[in-house]
């Protein structure tokens, strides 16, 4: 085989592709679509995974939840103070927070209650409270929420509807930057007393207790200790949550598996068809080429170009399609499969992140395999005696 690219050979290969135009266009389309499908799935799932991970990073080490009849119930705030006395507990907080459905915008807001003078278990809240002060009847909103309110003409005040149907008017005080994580986008912050009012909690009630531990290694033993103190309650560690998210994620992977099986099966059929040999016409052509002085290497080089042109262009087109679909069009349809809640869906824009591993994986699963499958049958014919063309 010659060392530099032989452009005559290349144009012969392009000519061969053109001679079977419809078949090759079909193959190109199938390869592009397969790569696009797999790449989109990978891109989206990786984006989701990193979102989940950044979200979990913001969680406290341990959460204590009360439950009644198996359903999460409010918990007594005073438990937080008792837990603070345990060895190894750095901080504990009775949290008052929850979602509030803003029906005009069909959006879910996350209300977080704070105390001005006691530190929270969330570094995000602590940072926020250093920069802003809050009084009764005031809310701090993220820029996202601010826009949402503006759209519905809530410029200075917002009226929350309490559980008894009465209104609670709150002054929109300051705006903070959106959290990068999309799960935290629609956040608004108010004093715990106000939050209790909206969620209809009693004064001594909280949603749960967040506990931060001084030493990460002690999380499990402290969690056990807490469980012994409150055997009827739910103790959830950060790790449990991680597993929970992963399970949620693996549930989606049934969908993954289907896509993989379909893709591989389709690709397998293509490869099988390629490997199953050449028709008489193609065999004769190889015989002719050998008779007029093409070496086996020349024939294989031509086939290599042929396979490479088709599979590489198919691969690249597929990747470009996936980029456009996921990052420019924001993955319509596919997104619905990954994001269970409609509210999350609406606001979720996918952050561009190029995963070279994904690109490489798809490349090696498609291009070299296709090329080899193109070469092998020709190699089998080319190494036979060429005198059959004489007959």
């Amino acid at each position, binding site marked *: 085989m010659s060392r530099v690219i*032989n452009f005559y050979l290349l144009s012969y290969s392009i000519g061969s592709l053109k001679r079977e135009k419809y078949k090759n266009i079909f193959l190109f389309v199938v390869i592009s679509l397969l790569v696009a499908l797999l790449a989109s799935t990978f891109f989206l799932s990786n984006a989701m995974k990193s979102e989940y991970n950044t979200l979990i990073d913001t969680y406290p080490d341990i959460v204590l939840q009360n439950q009644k009849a198996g359903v999460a119930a409010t918990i007594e705030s005073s438990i937080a103070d008792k837990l603070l006395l345990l060895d190894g507990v750095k901080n504990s907080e009775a949290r008052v927070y929850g979602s509030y459905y803003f029906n005009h915008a069909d959006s879910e807001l996350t209300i977080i209650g704070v105390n001005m003078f006691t530190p929270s278990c969330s570094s995000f809240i602590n940072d926020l409270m250093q920069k802003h002060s809050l009084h009764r009847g005031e809310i701090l909103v993220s820029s996202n929420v601010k826009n949402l309110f503006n759209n519905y003409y809530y410029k200075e005040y917002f009226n929350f509807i309490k559980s008894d149907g009465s209104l609670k008017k709150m002054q929109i005080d300051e705006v903070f930057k959106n959290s990068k994580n999309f799960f935290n986008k629609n956040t608004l912050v108010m004093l715990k007393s106000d939050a209790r009012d909206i969620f209809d909690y009693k004064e001594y009630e909280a949603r749960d207790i967040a506990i931060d531990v001084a030493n990460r290694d002690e999380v499990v033993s402290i969690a056990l200790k807490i469980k012994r103190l409150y055997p009827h309650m739910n103790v959830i560690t950060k790790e449990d949550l991680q597993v929970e998210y992963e399970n949620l994620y693996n549930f989606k992977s049934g969908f993954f598996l289907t896509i993989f099986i379909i893709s591989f099966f389709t690709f397998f059929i293509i490869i099988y068809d390629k490997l199953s040999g050449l028709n008489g016409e193609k065999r*004769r052509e190889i015989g002719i080429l050998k*008779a007029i002085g*093409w070496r086996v290497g020349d024939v294989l080089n031509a086939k290599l170009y042929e396979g490479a042109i088709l599979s590489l262009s198919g691969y690249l087109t597929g990747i470009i399609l996936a980029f456009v679909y996921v990052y420019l069009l924001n993955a319509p349809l596919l997104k619905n499969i990954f994001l269970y809640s409609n509210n999350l869906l609406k606001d979720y824009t996918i952050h561009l992140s190029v995963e070279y591993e994904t690109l490489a994986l798809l490349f090696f699963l498609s291009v070299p395999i296709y090329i080899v499958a193109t070469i092998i049958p020709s190699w089998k014919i080319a190494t036979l005696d060429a005198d059959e063309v004489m007959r």
Partner: protein
Amino acid sequence: MIELKNVSKEYEGGVKALNRVSLKFTEGEVVVLKGMSGSGKSSILSLIAGLCKPTEGEVVVDGKHISKLADHFATSFRRENIGMIFQKYNLIVDLSVQENILLPLVPLNLKNDELEKRLNRELERSNLVSKKDIQVKKLSGGEQQRCAIARANSNNPKIILADEPTANLDEKLSLEFIASLCEMKRENRTIIIATHDPLFFDLDFVDRIVEVGYGKIV
């Protein structure tokens, strides 16, 4: 100089196509191999071209032991020294005339102007200039044969091997073909024609007629 020394060829399935054949062709000679169908004419050409290997004996072309060369080197030898013309033309019918003519030169990766030069030479000689971009399958039989000759000549071979070159041609076209052979002879090429077309048997530029019968030289 081409020499077959005690060559036998047995194909798979036990068909003995040649049985201890010895033959010599000198440079610039025009030889007609005649004989019945199945007598082994094509096999002789295949062996000289290095397209297959003898079961026994040796084939020596220009001092090279063709029959002992590995496929890679036999092919190199063929592409530098041999032009082949077949009964069924063996053109690639979906390609154009010029693509077919240039096909033997593709692996050589020649300079563009050299390629151009050879293409024009062969197009003119075969009178196919106006048809150069036409697909071979749209040509008439005579044009296809001319294209096949042009292809065989494009690598400037010293040896031309023609297997039943006129079997698909009418008399007028056959005579045209013979005229072009005559021209090749003037260029001092060695030409071996396997045929049973009687037209070849009383041509003045043919130096020798060899009769092959059941794997033997008669």
